[in-house]
C-alpha cells in the first residue's frame, strides 16, 4: 500500500502497523529524520497508537486497526510528514554520550588485526580512527538492547565475513560496512570481533533493563587488558554517561 513515491514514504506493515521510511539506503539525514519523526509521534500521543520504534531509516507505529481506521491514521501521518522537512530536523533531546572502556585486539578480540588490515590501517591508526569517532546509536535491534552504531570513516566500508564466527561473547564490539555492533548477548555473527567491553546492555532484573537508546552517542575508549579485568564485577564495565546538551 504505497501512498507516495518519493521520500518520506508511508506504507503498512502487517495488519496493525505503519512504516514511515526516509530512504532506501542508510544515511545520516535519513537516520536523524526517523529518530526525530518518532519523537514527534510520541509527543502526538494519538488515540489508538500502541507502540512506536525506529529502524535505521524508518519510523514504525503499531496501532489498533479495529479502534482506529487505516485511512484515518494514514492521513494523520501524511499531515505530520508535511509539517516540516524531517531531513533537516534536529535530533531529539534527552540523549546521552557514553564513554565505554574497550580492549582493542589481544586474544579478547581476535579479529582486530584482520579488520584493521582490510581498512588499510596499522593497529594504532585503527584504534585512533575508531576511538576518536563519536558514534550514534542508529537503531537498537536483533537482540534486546543491542545497538547498531555509525558511521565510521569510509575506510571501514569492509564487508561482513562470508562465514559466521561460531559465537562472540556479550560485550563484543564488531565491525562491518562502516558500522559497529556491540553485542548484548552471546551470538554467532558474520561481523568481525575487534574489541571487547564489559558493558552489559540488557539486564532483565534491573530497574533500568536497557542501557542504550537510539540517538545516544558512544565513544569507545581504549583500555588495557589489566584494567578491563579489574572492571569485571561492574555490569557497566566502567562505562559512564553524560547528558548531551
Amino acid at each position, binding site marked *: *500500500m*504505497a501512498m507516495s513515491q518519493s521520500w518520506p514514504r508511508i*506504507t*503498512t*506493515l*502487517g*495488519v*496493525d*502497523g505503519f*512504516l514511515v*521510511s526516509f530512504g*532506501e*539506503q*542508510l544515511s545520516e539525514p535519513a537516520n536523524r529524520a526517523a529518530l526525530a519523526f*518518532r519523537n514527534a509521534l510520541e509527543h502526538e500521543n494519538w488515540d489508538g497508537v*500502541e*507502540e*512506536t*520504534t*525506529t*529502524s*535505521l*531509516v*524508518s519510523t*514504525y507505529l*503499531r496501532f489498533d*486497526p*479495529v479502534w482506529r*481506521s*487505516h485511512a484515518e491514521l494514514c492521513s494523520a501521518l501524511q499531515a505530520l510528514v508535511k509539517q516540516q522537512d524531517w531531513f533537516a530536523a534536529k535530533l531529539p533531546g534527552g540523549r546521552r554520550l557514553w564513554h565505554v572502556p574497550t580492549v582493542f585486539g589481544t586474544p579478547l578480540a581476535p579479529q582486530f588485526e584482520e579488520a584493521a588490515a582490510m581498512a588499510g590501517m596499522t593497529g594504532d591508526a585503527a584504534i585512533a580512527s575508531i576511538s576518536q569517532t563519536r558514534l550514534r546509536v542508529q*537503531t*537498537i*535491534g*536483533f*537482540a*534486546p*538492547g*543491542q545497538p547498531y552504531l555509525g558511521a565510521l570513516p569510509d575506510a571501514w566500508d569492509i564487508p561482513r565475513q562470508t562465514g559466521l564466527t561460531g559465537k562472540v561473547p556479550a560485550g563484543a564490539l564488531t565491525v562491518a560496512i562502516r558500522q559497529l555492533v556491540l553485542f*548484548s*548477548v552471546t551470538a554467532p555473527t558474520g561481523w568481525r570481533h575487534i574489541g571487547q567491553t564489559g558493558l552489559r546492555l*540488557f539486564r*532483565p*532484573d534491573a530497574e533500568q*533493563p*536497557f542501557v542504550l*537508546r*537510539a540517538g545516544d552517542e558512544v565513544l569507545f575508549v581504549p583500555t588495557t587488558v589489566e584494567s578491563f579485568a579489574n572492571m569485571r564485577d561492574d555490569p557497566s564495565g566502567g562505562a559512564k554517561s553524560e547528558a548531551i546538551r
Partner: protein
Amino acid sequence: MSRHLTVHRIGPGATVQDQGRPGYLANGLSRGGAVDALALYEGAALLGQDPTAAVLEMPGTGGTFEASEDMRVALTGAPMRASIDDTPLVWNASHLLPKGARLMIGAAEIGNYGYLHLGGGLQPDMRLGARSAHLAGGIGGVVQPGTQIPVGSDAARHQVGNCINVTPRFGGGMLRIVPCAQTALFDQAQIARFLSAEFRRDMRGNRMGVRLLCDGKGYHSDAGLSVLSEVIVPGDIQVTGDGTPFVLLSECQTTGGYPRIGAVLPADLPIVAQARPGAVFRFCMLSLAEAVDVERQDRARRLGLASKMRPLIRNPHDIPDLLSFQLISGATTGSDLDG
C-alpha cells in the same frame, strides 16, 4: 512455597507463556508470548478467568505434574494424551486436579503446542511486565524437572467439568495474508505464482518462526539481498537468500534484512504454529479492509468463547468410582451421565 505446581517430569522446550511484553520493540525485544495465542483464550474461557493468566506451553509432549492443593486445570492447544491418576482426561476441557494426584500429559496426537492452564494462573516472577519466558531475549528459561511453579489464588474454585469446541488449526490449510511495505519488491508474476503454489512446513521451526518448503524454484525480489534491515513483526513472510519463505512467530527478532512478500493475519498464526512438518499451506491475499474485518470477527469470537462452553458428558463406564458419586442430591444432574 504456598500454592504451587510441582513439575516431576517435563518434555524439552516447555516454557511458561502469557500474552507477552508489548512495548519493547524500541529496545530490541519482541513481544513474545504464547505461539498459539488462541489457546490462551480457550483456556481462560474454560476456567472463567482472564486471558492474561500465564500457562505452560508444551511443544510436542507434556510431562507429569502434581498440585500442592486442589486446583482447577484446563487443557488446550494441540491435543495430547492426558490422565489424572490413570483416569483419562478430555482435551479442550477443565478438570479438578486433586492435591497429590498425578497429572500426566503425553505426546501430541496432532499439532505441536499443548497448553496447561491452572485456575489462578502460573505466577513465576514478573519480569518487564510479564511472566512469560522469552528464550531468544534471554528472559526466563525452559521449565526443568523438579521445578515448583507458584500458582495464583483461584476465585472460581468449583467451576470444572466443562468443555469447548475449538477452531480446527492442527493440519495446515489456507493462510490469509495482506501486502506489506516490501511486497512491491516482488514482481506481479512472482506474487501470482506465490498465491497459486502449495507449501509444506519444513522440519525447521520454533517459537521464532517456521520455514516453508516450496516445489520448484523459490521466490526472488528485484532488490535481491540488498534490502536494508527493517522492522519485522510476527506474521511477516521473509523470503530468505535461497528463495524459501519463513513465517515469523511471536518470538521473532525485531529487525530483519530479508525482503517480505506479505504478512499472515494474526488470526491465522495459530495455524502456522500448530502445523507439523509436512503439513500443506496455501496463501490468499486479502485487502487491508478485509483483514481488519477478519481481525474484528476474530476478537469477537475469542471473547465469545465462554458462551460456547458446555458441561462434559461422561460415560458411566469411564467413571471407575461411580458408586462414590452422589447421584441423587443436587450435586449431579441426571443429564450429566447420559450417553
